[in-house]
C-alpha cells in the first residue's frame, strides 16, 4: 500500500444471504483515499454506498460476508482486525457523520456532557476536555460555545446540530471522516455553510474525508476525487474534473445528463435513464449497465468489463472506456 | 387472475371473505402458526364438545376410587374425591375459555374504542380517558376483585367483570399511543386531503395498523386470565365448588402432590397447551395482518 493513502480498498466483494438467494452487493470494489483529500461517492439508491461504508467501519449486517478483498487503513487490513481493535479505530481514527444528526446525539444528555464523554480515552483533566470541546464548537461555528455546552440537542436548530455532530466527529482528530449525506436534510443556504466549514476544517486538520452525496453540485464543489457506483460496482473513478468534464462510463455520462442543474436551456422534458437497476441476485453475464446503456455492443452482454486505467488516475469499468468520453 | 381480483375489489363482501381465507392460508403456511391454530382449535373443540366427550359426570363422587393414576377407565386418573379428572378438565376448559374469551373480547372492543377516541379525538377527551384509565390501574387487581365480590357476590360473572375492567386500560393505552403516533402520519394526511371522514380514517387506516399488536397482546392475555380465574376461584371469589375449573383442579391437586402428581399434571397441561396455542396463533396473526412482515416479495 502506498503510504500516501489513508485508505485503500482493493477487490472488495460483499455478499448477503437472503431468501431470494445470494445477493452480490459489492463486486470488485476499488477505492483510494489519498492523505488529506476529499473523495466523493456518487450513486443512486441501491448502488452499494452504504454497504461499502459499513464494510469500512466493520459494521456489516449479520447476513453479510466479505468473500474477498482488502481494506487497508494506514497500512493495516481492517478485515483482519478483531471486534475490539475495530472499536478502538472507530471514533478515534475513523469517525462518521450522518444525514440526521439526531441519530448520533443522545437526546437526554447535554452537548457538553456528550462531548466530554467521548474523550474517555484521554487521560487529561476534565477541565481540559471541556476547554477542548469549547474550542471545537467554536471551530465549527457555534456562536457562544461556552454557554451552549449546557444545552440539550433539541435546543439547537438542524444546522447547529449537524455542526455539533461534525465537532464531535473531528474532536478525536481522526485520519478519516466518513460523511454520509451530511447536508441532505439541510436547507440550501445552510448546506453551503456546512460544506465550506467542512472544507476549512479538513484543510486545517489535514484529515481525509469520504463524502457520500447524491447532490452532484456539492460533490463538484467540495471533492478532489470522485467514485461513481452503480449496482454494487465502482463503474468509474478519477479526479473531480475527469468525472465532471470527461465522464467515461456511460452511466456517469447519463447521471450527469439527468441532473437538471446541468441543463442550461429550460426544458419540460428532462432526460432519464430508461430501465431499472438489475436484480443483484440474478446478475447479467456481462456488464451490469448493458441493459440500460445506449452504446452497448455485443461484447457488453457477454463479458464483464474490467476496471481499466485508460488515462492517468482515471479508471472506468467499460469495454468502451476512453472512446465514450465527452461526445 | 386479474379479472377475478378486480371484481373482488368492486364488491365488498366476497373481497373480505377472500382476504380472510387468504390470511388463514398464510397462518397455516408457518409451522408455528399452524401448530398454534391446531392447538387453539383443539382446545376450543374439546371445550365446546365437553359434555359429549366427558366419560363421567364431572361432579360424581366415588370415594373408593380416589387419587387413582391414569387408566383405561379414568384417562387422567381421579382426584381426592374420586371424581374423573379427564371429565373435570374438559368441563373446566369450557369455563376457562368462556371467562377468558368473553371477558378479553369485551375488554378488547371497549379498550380499542376508547383508545381510538383518546388518540384521535380532542385533547380534553384524551386527558379525561387517561385519568380514568390511570385510576382503574392504580387499584391492585386482587383488592379490586375483593371490592367487586363484596358488591356482587362470588360468581363467574364477577370474575369476568374484574377481568374486563382491569384489562380495558391496558388495551386502551396501547391503542391510544399507537393512534397518536399515526394521526399525523403522511398517509393519514393524504386520506384527509381526499376528503375521508373521521370514521373512515379510524376504521380503514388506523384500526388495521393498531389491531395487530393488540391481537398478540390479547391472545397472550388469555393464559393470564385463566390464572386470574384460577386464583380467584381458589380464594373462593370465582367459580364456586363443586363446579370444575382448571384453577380448582390445580389447587385441589396441590394438597396431594406428595401422594400423586396426576391431578396437578392433568390441570397444568391444558393451561400450557392453551398458552402456547394462543401465543403462536397471536404471533402468526400479527405477521399476517402486517404485510410488511410477510416474507414473500
Amino acid at each position: 500500500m502506498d503510504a500516501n493513502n489513508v485508505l485503500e480498498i482493493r477487490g472488495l466483494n460483499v455478499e448477503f444471504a437472503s431468501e431470494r438467494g445470494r445477493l452480490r452487493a459489492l463486486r470488485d470494489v476499488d477505492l483510494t483515499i489519498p492523505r488529506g483529500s476529499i473523495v466523493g461517492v456518487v450513486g443512486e439508491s441501491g448502488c452499494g454506498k452504504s454497504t461499502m461504508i459499513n464494510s469500512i467501519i466493520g459494521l456489516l449486517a449479520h447476513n453479510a460476508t466479505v468473500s474477498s478483498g482488502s481494506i487497508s487503513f494506514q497500512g493495516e487490513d481492517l478485515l483482519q482486525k478483531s471486534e475490539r481493535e475495530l472499536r478502538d479505530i472507530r471514533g478515534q481514527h475513523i469517525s462518521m457523520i450522518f444525514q440526521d444528526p439526531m441519530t448520533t446525539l443522545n437526546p437526554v444528555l447535554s452537548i457538553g456532557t456528550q462531548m466530554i464523554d467521548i474523550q474517555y480515552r484521554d487521560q487529561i483533566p476534565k477541565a481540559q476536555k471541556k476547554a477542548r470541546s469549547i474550542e471545537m464548537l467554536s471551530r465549527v461555528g457555534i456562536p457562544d460555545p461556552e454557554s451552549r455546552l449546557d444545552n440539550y440537542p433539541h435546543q439547537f436548530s438542524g444546522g447547529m446540530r449537524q455542526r455539533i455532530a461534525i465537532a464531535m466527529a473531528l474532536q478525536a482528530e481522526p485520519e478519516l471522516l466518513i460523511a454520509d449525506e451530511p447536508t441532505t436534510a439541510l436547507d440550501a443556504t445552510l448546506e453551503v455553510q456546512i460544506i465550506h466549514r467542512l472544507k476549512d476544517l479538513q484543510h486545517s486538520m489535514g484529515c481525509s474525508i469520504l463524502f457520500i452525496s447524491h447532490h452532484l453540485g456539492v460533490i463538484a464543489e467540495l471533492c478532489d476525487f470522485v467514485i461513481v457506483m452503480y449496482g454494487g460496482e465502482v463503474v468509474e473513478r478519477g479526479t473531480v474534473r475527469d468525472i465532471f468534464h470527461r465522464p467515461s462510463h456511460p452511466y456517469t455520462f447519463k447521471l450527469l445528463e439527468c441532473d437538471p442543474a446541468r441543463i442550461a436551456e429550460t426544458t419540460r422534458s428532462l432526460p432519464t435513464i430508461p430501465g431499472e437497476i438489475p436484480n443483484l441476485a440474478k446478475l447479467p453475464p456481462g456488464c451490469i449497465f448493458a441493459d440500460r446503456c445506449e452504446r452497448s455492443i455485443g461484447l457488453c452482454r457477454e463479458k464483464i468489463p474490467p476496471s481499466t486505467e485508460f488515462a492517468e488516475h482515471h479508471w472506468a469499468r467499460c469495454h468502451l472506456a476512453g472512446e465514450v468520453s465527452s461526445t | 387472475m386479474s379479472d377475478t381480483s378486480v371484481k373482488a375489489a368492486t364488491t365488498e363482501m366476497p373481497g373480505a371473505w377472500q382476504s380472510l381465507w387468504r390470511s388463514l392460508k398464510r397462518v397455516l403456511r408457518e409451522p408455528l402458526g399452524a401448530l398454534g391454530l391446531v392447538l387453539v382449535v383443539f382446545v376450543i373443540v374439546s371445550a365446546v364438545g365437553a359434555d359429549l366427550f366427558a366419560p363421567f359426570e364431572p361432579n360424581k363422587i366415588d370415594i373408593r376410587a380416589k387419587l387413582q393414576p391414569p387408566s383405561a377407565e379414568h384417562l387422567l386418573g381421579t382426584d381426592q374425591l374420586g371424581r374423573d379428572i379427564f371429565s373435570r378438565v374438559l368441563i373446566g376448559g369450557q369455563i376457562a375459555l368462556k371467562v377468558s374469551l368473553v371477558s378479553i373480547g369485551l375488554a378488547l372492543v371497549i379498550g380499542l374504542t376508547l383508545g381510538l377516541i383518546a388518540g384521535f379525538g380532542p385533547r380534553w377527551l384524551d386527558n379525561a380517558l387517561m385519568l380514568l384509565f390511570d385510576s382503574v390501574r392504580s387499584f391492585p387487581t386482587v383488592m379490586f376483585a375483593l371490592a367487586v365480590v363484596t358488591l356482587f357476590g362470588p360468581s363467574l360473572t364477577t370474575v369476568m367483570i374484574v377481568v374486563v375492567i382491569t384489562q380495558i386500560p391496558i388495551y386502551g393505552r396501547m391503542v391510544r399511543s399507537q393512534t397518536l403516533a399515526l394521526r399525523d402520519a403522511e398517509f393519514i394526511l393524504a386520506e384527509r386531503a381526499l376528503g375521508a371522514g373521521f370514521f373512515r380514517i379510524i376504521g380503514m387506516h388506523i384500526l388495521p395498523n393498531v389491531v395487530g399488536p393488540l391481537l398478540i397482546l390479547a391472545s397472550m392475555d388469555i393464559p393470564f386470565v385463566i390464572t386470574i380465574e384460577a386464583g380467584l376461584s381458589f380464594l373462593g371469589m370465582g367459580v364456586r365448588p363443586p363446579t370444575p375449573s382448571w384453577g380448582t383442579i390445580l389447587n385441589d391437586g396441590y394438597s396431594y402432590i406428595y401422594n400423586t402428581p396426576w391431578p396437578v399434571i392433568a390441570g397444568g397441561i391444558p393451561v400450557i397447551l392453551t398458552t402456547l396455542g394462543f401465543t403462536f396463533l397471536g404471533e402468526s396473526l400479527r405477521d399476517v395482518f402486517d404485510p410488511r412482515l410477510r416474507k414473500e416479495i
Partner: protein
Amino acid sequence: MNTLLELDDVHVRFRTHSPLNAILKGIDDPFVDAVNGVSLEIGEGETYGLVGESGSGKTTLARSIIGLVEPQRGSIRYDGTELVGMPTAEMQKFRGNVGAMFQDPVGSLSPRMTIRSLLAEPFKIHDLSQRNLGQEVNRLLEMVGLNRDFANRYPHQLSGGQARRVGVARALALDPKLVVADEPTAGLDVSVQGEILNLLGRLQQELGISILVITHNLNVVRHITDRMGIMYFGRVVEQGPTETMFHQPSHPYTLALLSANPEPDPDAEIDRLELQGEVPSLFNRPSGCEFHPRCPFADDRCQASFPDLTELSDAHSYRCHHPLHVT
C-alpha cells in the same frame, strides 16, 4: 388566462399555549404566525413554484389550499369557491377537488392497503362507487405508466418512483383542476426525478390542470414552473415569472437562494451571496423586515419597518427596502 386559485392576504396562526396556560404564564398572544399575509394567483393550466427553506410556511400554506388547515384571516378562492370560513362538513366534501401529493412517496400511502384499494379509495370516499372501480383503477394505473400487476402490491413493495406514480394517480383520480405537490421529487434519484417530472408535465398538457409545486429544489423549479414565489418566514418576499426571477432577482434572499445552489461543475465560478445564521425561530419574530438579521444590505429602516409590496412590470413583485438591480 383565467385565474383558478386566488389567495388574498392569507394568515395562518398556530396556538402555542392552551388558553388556560396562556393566562397562567401571562402570555398575551399564545400564537405563532406560520403564514403571514400571503397573496398569490394561479391561472388555469399554469405551474407555480413555491420555494422556501424549512420553517418558511410553504407547507402550511399548501395545506390551507387543500383544506387541511384553516386560515384565520384572508381569502382562498378556488374555482369560484371561498374556502376560508367554509363549514366543516362542506369542507370535507370539498377536499379531493384539489389533488394533493405529499412528501414521502411510500409513507403517504396507507401501508395495509393494496395499490388497487388505494386507487379506488377516492371514488369510495366521494360516493362514486357506481363507477366501475376496476376500470377506474386500470385507467389510473395506465395513466401514470404502471403495469396492471401493481394493483395487487402493497406500498412497501414499491420503489420510491413507483410509489410516487401511485401518489400522482391518487391525486388525479377525481379529475381536479389543481394539484398541490409538496416536494414531489424529495428522496428520489435524479433519473427517477426526471421521470416523475416528465409524467407530471405530460399529464398537465393532456388534462389542462394547474400545478402548485412546493419545493426547495431550485433546479426543479427552473425547468417546470411558469411563475414562482419565494417564501421567507411566512411571507412571499418576491414573486414573478420564473425566467425573470432567475435572471434578475430583486430580493437579496432570492439571490442568496439562487447562489446557494452549488453547480455540478468543479470549475464553476462561484459568485455567492452567502448568508449568515439560520432562519430564526417563529417564536422570535424579528422586527421590521424578517430577513434583516441575515441580510447583508440591512440598515435601520429594515429593522424598523416591513417593506411594502413593490410591483414591477410583468407580474413581478417584491418586498424589500434595498432591492437589487433596480435603479
